[in-house]
């Protein structure tokens, strides 16, 4: 059939079979080289200064894998292949070159969809070609392939929609949602198991694909915008597992290796993200966090307390005469697209002799590493960017913390208030600093719907308004000093 690369056509003449054998071995060797290059490429990502070259080598590995595959003896016509490669390049090039860094979360989400689409279509075609005469192990592989693939297609599209803003970012919930989803999931698994036992039921196979597509939509519906880092990572993992299952179905090792790398990466990232929110997978996927925030007594009491708001002039003076400044960016910085203004202000302060660092919470923004990429785009040197663990014990030496569009990740309630929904989540201890300036549009609560007592702290000053405008004014004021 399609893939089985090791399988030599038994009807072929000896010479042809020997030729095919050599060719197949060559293909396998090429795959081995590309697999190794992929692993080396990923390993290079442990070093920022080596990463670019490592990934370029991985790209060479991909080119090798494509060339190797084109040698395959099953390939007899190239018209559709060339057409697909050209069309894919025409779509992929602008997606690679012109998408701004601020749109990176939705860009990543939509690319999971493309990868999963390819895997799913290969799986469906394979089943269709075998016309029900599918060996059970192959059926199991095909099942995993189309299940993971189809869930990822629609799930990623939903995530893309929520991140792009054409589907509401607030969780969509209804009565009996979890029960309905669970029933659909159970039915899908039931069909899958039945198909492995009795593969010759095409209608059931396509019904299973349809169910998986529906699960993808329903799974992401109740998940809110700020939980997207976990979802996008998880879909990354699913896309990888779909590719791996494709490898099992067509007996191709390089697919299995890449899929496993991808799956491990996505799983690891989603675990890290969940940990950074002190929540379990299940809670993220089924909890619909922040859907109906309950105003607790403590929060209600907070709302009556006075808030100290400051002017850009005062804030500029405060910053200009600080020795140590830490910037805490959040999703608000991505929304306002003010990373360049942040960098400009930091450069000015550094020229005046201050030390400026950036504290990055793992779930700040809408995907893993979101803030790092934005700041790198604004030319902030990466050795100024610090993780939660690296910087948290340094806050008591800091003169001013500048919080830009971050909320829940700096809420001390996570440490102090056991009744708070975010209690136990690791936060940046900015309240340990000598003073805090918060750039924020209004007093609206953060994603979790929890009031932030940091804003009512005596050492906190609120600078209300659009973050970009506020920063531009700050820059002008510091320059004028």
């Amino acid at each position, binding site marked *: 059939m399609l893939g089985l690369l090791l399988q030599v056509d038994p009807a072929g003449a000896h010479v042809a079979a020997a030729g095919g054998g050599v060719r197949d071995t060559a293909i396998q060797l090429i795959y081995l080289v590309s697999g190794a290059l992929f692993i080396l490429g990923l390993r290079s990502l*442990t070093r920022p200064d080596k990463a670019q070259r490592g990934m370029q080598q991985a790209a060479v590995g991909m080119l090798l894998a494509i060339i190797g595959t*084109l040698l395959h003896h*099953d390939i007899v016509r190239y018209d559709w292949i060339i057409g697909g490669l050209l069309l894919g390049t025409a779509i992929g090039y602008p997606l690679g070159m012109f998408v701004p860094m601020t749109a990176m979360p939705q860009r990543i989400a939509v*690319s999971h969809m493309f990868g999963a689409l390819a895997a799913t*279509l290969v799986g469906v075609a394979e089943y269709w070609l075998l016309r029900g005469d599918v060996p059970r192990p192959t059926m199991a592989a095909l099942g995993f392939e189309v299940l993971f693939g189809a869930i990822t297609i629609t799930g990623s599209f939903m995530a893309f929609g929520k991140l792009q803003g054409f589907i509401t970012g607030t969780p969509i919930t209804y009565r009996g949602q979890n029960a309905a989803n669970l029933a659909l999931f159970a039915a899908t698994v039931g069909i899958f198991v039945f198909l492995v036992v009795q593969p010759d039921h095409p209608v059931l196979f396509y019904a299973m694909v349809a169910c998986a597509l529906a699960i993808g939509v329903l799974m992401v519906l109740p998940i809110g915008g700020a939980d997207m880092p976990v979802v996008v990572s998880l879909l990354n993992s699913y896309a990888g597992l779909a590719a791996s299952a494709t490898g099992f179905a067509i007996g191709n090792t390089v697919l299995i290796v890449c899929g496993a790398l991808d799956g491990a990466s996505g799983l690891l990232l989603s675990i890290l993200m969940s940990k950074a929110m002190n929540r379990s997978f299940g809670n993220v996927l089924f909890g619909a966090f922040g859907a109906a925030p309950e105003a607790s007594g403590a929060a209600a009491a907070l709302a009556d307390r006075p808030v100290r708001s400051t002017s850009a002039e005062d804030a500029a003076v405060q910053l200009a005469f600080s020795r140590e400044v830490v910037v805490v960016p959040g999703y608000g910085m991505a929304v306002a697209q003010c990373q360049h203004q942040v960098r400009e202000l930091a450069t000015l302060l550094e020229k005046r002799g201050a030390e400026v660092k950036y504290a990055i919470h793992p779930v700040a923004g809408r995907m893993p590493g979101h803030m790092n990429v934005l700041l790198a785009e604004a030319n902030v040197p990466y050795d100024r960017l610090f*993780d939660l663990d690296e910087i948290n014990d340094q806050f008591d030496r800091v003169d001013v913390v500048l919080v830009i569009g971050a909320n829940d990740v700096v809420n001390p309630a996570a440490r102090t208030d056991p009744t708070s929904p975010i209690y136990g989540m690791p936060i940046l201890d900015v309240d340990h600093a000598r003073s805090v300036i918060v750039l924020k549009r209004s007093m609206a609560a953060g994603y979790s719907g929890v009031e932030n007592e940091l804003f009512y702290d005596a050492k906190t000053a609120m600078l209300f308004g659009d973050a970009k405008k506020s920063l531009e004014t700050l820059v002008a004021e510091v320059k004028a000093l």
Partner: protein
Amino acid sequence: MLITLLFVFVLAAFVGYEVITRVPPLLHTPLMSATNAISGISLVGSLVLAGSNHGLVATILGFIAVTAATVNVVGGFLITDRMLKMFRSRLPGGGDGREKQEGGSR
């Protein structure tokens, strides 16, 4: 055959886990786009589907699959490169000791 493939899968998953645990949070977004680009390896299966003569349905499914996977390969590697270039490059003149040291070793 199946057992060999399972071997490959499990070992690759362990390698992936070990390698990726050491990727700093700084590069988590490039990591995602890199794994995305690499998952474009589905292209391997798609190419065989689009290029073998198994009838129009299979060919068209293969064509769409080749297109989708190529989008990931081309777009994924390009965008990863763009991002990593930002992390590699520094502003000249703004360096401290650590930067000079790294600049020298390159």
